[in-house]
């Protein structure tokens, strides 16, 4: 059924339809509407679940860790500082191979405090072992949640999945959404069953101490699973297409790539703006295209190389920055494309939209203009020079 709804409400609605047994969360802007909606749905007996109001995000993550360890499908959502406070538990959930699903309403991190959107928060847990998926639209956010549980609980996976949605832009934006029906979701996502749980009839020890004789192999197995997930994500997306009669998610998505010479690469809602920018450029006869990265971890290196190998120039648009280094997506792409050797396209990195700075068609056309000039590693676009004083010379 199609409805014009807010992103957070759409997420709450689809999470409800995924039937988690335990939800735990701590409020943080802009995640709040999601968990408020879920609390109300439970209060109204729209579905049965335990809602655990905790005293911190560290405990929210710990509660879903414990609940998931009893073999119960669990859910949490957070943002920014909340994700940073959770970080220790986030790593632990992946290490324990618990298939938790979490929504991150992506937001800038302090200092200075800023509640608006960028994608700096998730980068703090980039290396945790979680599958990291990025949504462009509210529709895609909804579809990714259904796929996230299916993927996480796949016996070949057994790893947590995070669905990233840009704070405010997607959480508080409104869109016409094709909301899957409960029966459809139930069919696509059967009840979670596992033998890997805390069970008094089959007592297991979870969370061992592993010394140097064992630790490295256990970490390697997570890495190997991520390699496997690169094959499973397209499988799940194709099953999704069969079940819901529309295409959504996958590892990457291309736009006007066939003959593209200049390709923008980005993640999340900015891809919508880039689509429009590509249309404008195409009208002017420019061979522009876009590559959207949906699965950031695992990083789909082969798919990206295949999509970009014929490009002349690649512009990586990052909404976060590894301070002292480069945009994280730029770094990953550079590393992936370096295997092309002399055929490697000219790569430029741009940092945009930090702390909610608007990214407009003008911003993207500025990226395009700069592509033909000197190669750049991490050019900040849209800086207000008058504020920088002596800093920028």
């Amino acid at each position, binding site marked *: 059924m199609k409805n014009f709804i807010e992103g957070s409400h759409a997420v709450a609605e689809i999470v409800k339809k995924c039937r988690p047994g335990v939800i735990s969360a701590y409020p943080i802007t802009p995640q709040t509407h999601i968990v408020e909606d879920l609390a109300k749905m439970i209060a109204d007996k729209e579905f049965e679940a*335990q809602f655990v109001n*905790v005293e*911190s995000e560290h*405990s929210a993550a*710990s*509660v879903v860790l414990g*609940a998931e360890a009893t073999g119960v499908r*669990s859910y949490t959502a957070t943002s920014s500082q909340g994700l940073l406070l959770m970080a220790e538990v986030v790593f632990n959930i992946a290490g324990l191979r618990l298939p938790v699903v979490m929504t991150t309403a992506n937001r800038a991190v302090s200092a200075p405090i800023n509640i608006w959107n960028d994608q700096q928060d998730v980068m703090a847990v980039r290396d945790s072992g979680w599958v990291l998926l990025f949504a462009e639209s509210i529709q895609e956010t909804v579809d990714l949640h259904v796929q996230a549980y299916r993927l996480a609980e796949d016996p070949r996976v057994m790893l947590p999945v995070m669905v990233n949605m840009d704070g405010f832009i997607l959480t508080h934006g409104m869109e016409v959404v094709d909301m899957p029906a409960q029966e459809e979701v139930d069919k696509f996502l059967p009840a979670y069953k596992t033998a890997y749980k805390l069970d008094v009839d089959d007592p297991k020890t979870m*969370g061992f101490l*592993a010394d140097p004789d064992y630790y490295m192999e256990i970490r390697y197995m997570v890495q190997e699973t991520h390699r496997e997930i690169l094959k499973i994500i397209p499988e799940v997306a194709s099953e999704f297409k069969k079940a819901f009669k529309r295409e959504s998610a996958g590892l990457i998505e291309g736009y006007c790539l066939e003959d593209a010479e200049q390709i923008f690469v980005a993640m999340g809602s900015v891809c919508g703006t880039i689509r429009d920018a590509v249309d404008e450029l195409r009208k002017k006869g420019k061979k522009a295209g876009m590559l959207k990265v949906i699965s950031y971890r695992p990083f789909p290196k082969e798919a990206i190389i295949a999509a970009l190998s014929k490009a002349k120039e690649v512009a990586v648009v990052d909404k976060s920055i590894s301070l002292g280094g480069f945009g994280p997506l730029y770094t990953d792409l550079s590393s992936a494309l370096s295997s092309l050797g002399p055929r490697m396209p000219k790569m430029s990195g741009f940092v945009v939209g930090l702390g909610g700075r608007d990214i407009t068609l003008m911003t993207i056309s500025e990226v395009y203009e700069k592509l033909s000039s000197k190669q750049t590693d991490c050019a900040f676009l849209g800086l207000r020079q008058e504020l920088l004083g002596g800093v920028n010379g």
Partner: protein
Amino acid sequence: MVETLFKPGHTACAGCGQAIGARLVIDTAGKNTIIANNTGCLEVFSTKYPESSWGVPWIHSLFENCAAVASGIEAGLRFLGKKDSINIIAQAGDGGTADIGLQAISGMFERGHDVLYVCYDNEAYMNTGIQRSGLTPTLTDTTTSPSGTGSEGNPRPKKPMPEIAAAHGIPYVATASVGYPQDVQKKVKKALSIKGPKYLQIHVPCPLGWRHEPGLTFDVAKLAVETGLYPIFEYENGQMIPRKIAKIKPVEEYLKVQGRFRHLIKNPEAIKKVQAIADANIQKYNLKAEA
């Protein structure tokens, strides 16, 4: 061999009070129990991959979150409709309880989860090498509160964890000592018969950190109680019931058998300070048995 849910073969030190305490707790709770364990000696010496001492489902996540993990386990079992038949125990050392884990414990108490929280109090961070915690007693020599020409050791009193727990209005709070194993068993049994959050703090000597003979674990534990330095009591529905001491002993008897207090032995003023703490406990908790 004695049937136990805490199997031998673990790597605890000889005379480890925590190993004795943990075994008493789980063997009293029985096999229908799930344990969430904070980081610490107990976790390290009982679950070195690929071996485990635990005969019940057991999970370790992090240093400070066993109360929250246990809350999640409880919520999961509640969702499954299995809570009433299964005990949940969250357990940790004194640092994992009174310092880094306090916020998560407070949350678990406030939310009313049906979980027994057990703190094995050996009065310092033993796993990392005997550093001071919030439950290290006054004038103790630890590696981060060393005695020296300008210091008599830890300057601060023990954090009143049982009172902090009781202030949450939870139905059962108790202290115990491995020096009195039957008392520990009785309290575990009682705690698990009560619905809601429970707090049990067990005094567990650490021969390595306290620097006493491994064979003296029970004697040292008993001396802590008999001197009034470790008051044993129960808070049930706001009512405090002490375990009375028949013959109160001077603190010196307790201090002199432990290296962590050796610096006090030739310092009568310091001993007076420790005696004052014991005297205050005896009065506050009404520990003296009627003649």
